[in-house]
């Protein structure tokens, strides 16, 4: 896969990993907004305020602000965490996904994954393990529409679908299943992404895959290009 988070570690086991799959069919211009809506909703639930550790192992938690986001190409609005850094990171990932998805060589089918993991430090020479504890996969199918009327209907339909997805996500969040234990100060970077200045999401990774027309998945467009070049 194509990790877009800078924290890269060796692939690991997926014990206790909860996996959820969501599927959407959208127009090309709706891909980014739809993905952001879903990813932000998940991260809203998977982010806390910044921890401030005090003496004796206690900590206080900062405050998470939220804001409404209106979509331009979908009749839909969602709430995201008020963190420009987080928003930028997600937008970057989603844009790359969209470019790959809608670029040439793609049939408009692919998936973007949001993984939450914990780091388990290992001794040298072994690299740290990443233990996946929650995996969200959003399968996307890009549709092409012929006229404005269809686009208008699509705006509404995708809006309704996204409402359903939000409800699905909230259902999962409500199960109160496994969450990493609250870490001590020395362990906090193994559980949370502490690089942001205003909020603290659990450690996450975003990756994507594009399905080519043969139905098999190619991990990067580069690989395909190289293949095509060599075939000439």
């Amino acid at each position, binding site marked *: 896969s194509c990790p877009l988070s800078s924290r890269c570690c060796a692939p690991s086991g997926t014990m206790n990993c909860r996996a959820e799959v969501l599927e959407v069919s959208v127009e090309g211009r709706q891909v980014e907004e739809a993905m952001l809506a879903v990813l932000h*909703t998940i991260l*809203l*639930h998977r982010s*806390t*305020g*910044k921890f*401030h550790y005090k003496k004796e192992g206690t900590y*206080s*938690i*900062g*405050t*998470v*602000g*939220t*804001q*409404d986001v*209106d979509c331009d190409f979908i*009749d839909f*609005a*969602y*709430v995201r*965490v*008020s*963190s420009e850094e987080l928003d930028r990171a997600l937008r970057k990932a989603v844009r790359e996904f969209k470019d790959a998805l809608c670029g040439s060589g793609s049939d408009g089918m692919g998936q973007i994954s949001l993984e939450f993991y914990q780091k388990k430090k290992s001794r040298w020479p072994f690299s740290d393990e990443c233990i996946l504890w929650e995996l969200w996969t959003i399968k996307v199918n890009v549709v092409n529409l012929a006229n404005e009327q269809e686009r208008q209907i699509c705006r*509404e339909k995708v809006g309704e679908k*996204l*409402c359903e997805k*939000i*409800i699905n*996500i*909230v*259902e999962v*969040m*409500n199960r*109160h299943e496994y969450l990493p234990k*609250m870490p001590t100060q020395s362990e906090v970077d193994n559980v949370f992404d502490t690089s942001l*200045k*205003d*909020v603290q999401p659990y450690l996450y990774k975003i990756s994507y895959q594009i399905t080519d027309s043969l139905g098999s998945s190619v991990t990067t467009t580069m690989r395909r290009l190289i293949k095509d070049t060599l075939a000439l």
Partner: protein
Amino acid sequence: AMDTDLSSQDRKDLDKFIKFFALKTVQVIVQARLGEKICTRSSSSPTGSDWFNLAIKDIPEVTHEAKKALAGQLPAVGRSMCVEISLKTSEGDSMELEIWCLEMNEKCDKEIKVSYTVYNRLSLLLKSLLAITRVTPAYRLSRKQGHEYVILYRIYFGEVQLSGLGEGFQTVRVGTVGTPVGTITLSCAYRINLAFMSTRQFERTPPIMGIIIDHFVDRPFPSSSPMHPCNYRAGEDSGAVYPSVEDSQEVCTTSFSTSPPSQCVFTVTKAHFQTPPPVVTDTLKVPVMGLAFSHQLSSSRLSYQPAALGVGSADMGYPVLFTGGLNAAHPHQLIGPGKEGGVPPVPNQPAHGTQADQERMCTPLDGVHYSAATPSSSEDTETVSNSSEGKCGSPHDLLETIFVRKVGAFVNKPINQVTMANLDIPFAMFAPKNVELEDNDPMVNPPESPDTESPLQGSLHSEGSSGSSTGNTHDDFVMIDFKPAFSKDDILPMDLGTFYREFQNPPQLSSLSIDIGAQSMAEDLDSLPEKLAVHEKNVKEFDAFVETLQ
């Protein structure tokens, strides 16, 4: 025995958590229906006052209402906190859209850690609530409120009442949190047969009559607490939120009746509104609790002009605060004439027997009160304020909102915005451009037929007109140029347009012409006695025939 497992500190903490959770829940729901985008900032340094580590603003009125509804209690089994969201149109029709329920059931989780796990899960639940409040149908409706309708909220505590949501309402669960004293559940039941009432329909003109079906005009539970608008604008800081008024004059009361529908107009009188309200022409109904208003869609012309709130925001649009009934302390106190010029004396009406404390009267939140009025026959707006003196000691800001209802609902645009092009009339573009006002709109007010001849007769005498700009066609549509679709001039000698023009005014069928029609009718009438005689002669045959059919 159950509770002894919970330390007293934990119990205190838990009660506090639940209380503030309930208050924050109400804030999130009401703020999500204000019609505005919400934005709060993250803060890495804990401020100590942000409950559940979430930046959720506290609108003081809302907190006040919630606290009042809770009255010091906490959600418990059989005692749920409900936030009811409803929609009220400019014509006064209202409809419940959603009920958000915070309930407690008996399933206890003894093992759970109060100060840590319960707290964090309550925080998670609030985040879920933030997300879910944006995905029910009422969200989009609330974003578009202002002119044709407003969104109101009402908080009550006790048994959940879902009957106002119409048939087939749906439920979405926001989440649950187990605690040692029970499981907190948060859910929303929402009406779905407004699905066809998409926001598009509210924006479109001409309006759609009768699109509100199955709405509760007569509230089944009249003893309910008053409703409040979601889209009032609280002060930016937590300070001056309550609207204040220089002179706390008469407080208008509401007088609505559940029984026979009357043409009521709700007016909310601004206390320092100088022009005296017009005289009421009809008797007012017996006042009833708060929100039992009953009226029907009618075609009278009443004007609606949103007025600005005295203090605070400028474009309240439609601040509508339903406060019920009469002053709790002085149920019979009404203001006679002299206080406000032109207000007729209203006989003291007994308040219906509900607990006074359920009517939210004369609190600082009572920005707005209603009075019933009936429309006059003229086209001017007429309202009446039936004032009652509120001895509550708090200043009131009363708003005058007079409703204009043109023929057809939801047409509240300024008159000059309604043009022919907006109306769904074929070839509207070709109509004369000076037809701007609805009053001149032939679709609304069909032109009178000429005195001498009927239009039918007129067309009888047309001499194969070419159809362009002659007077024998309908006077309000002038055919400037006729470009039929999918028709080209150069293909056939006679194209669709030419055909249309040539045969546009064919002569009437003779059987339809009035003279001949009248003639034949006269003949028919004359021949009736004869026919009857014949039938009477043959009555036996007819009877035999009927027998065979049975």
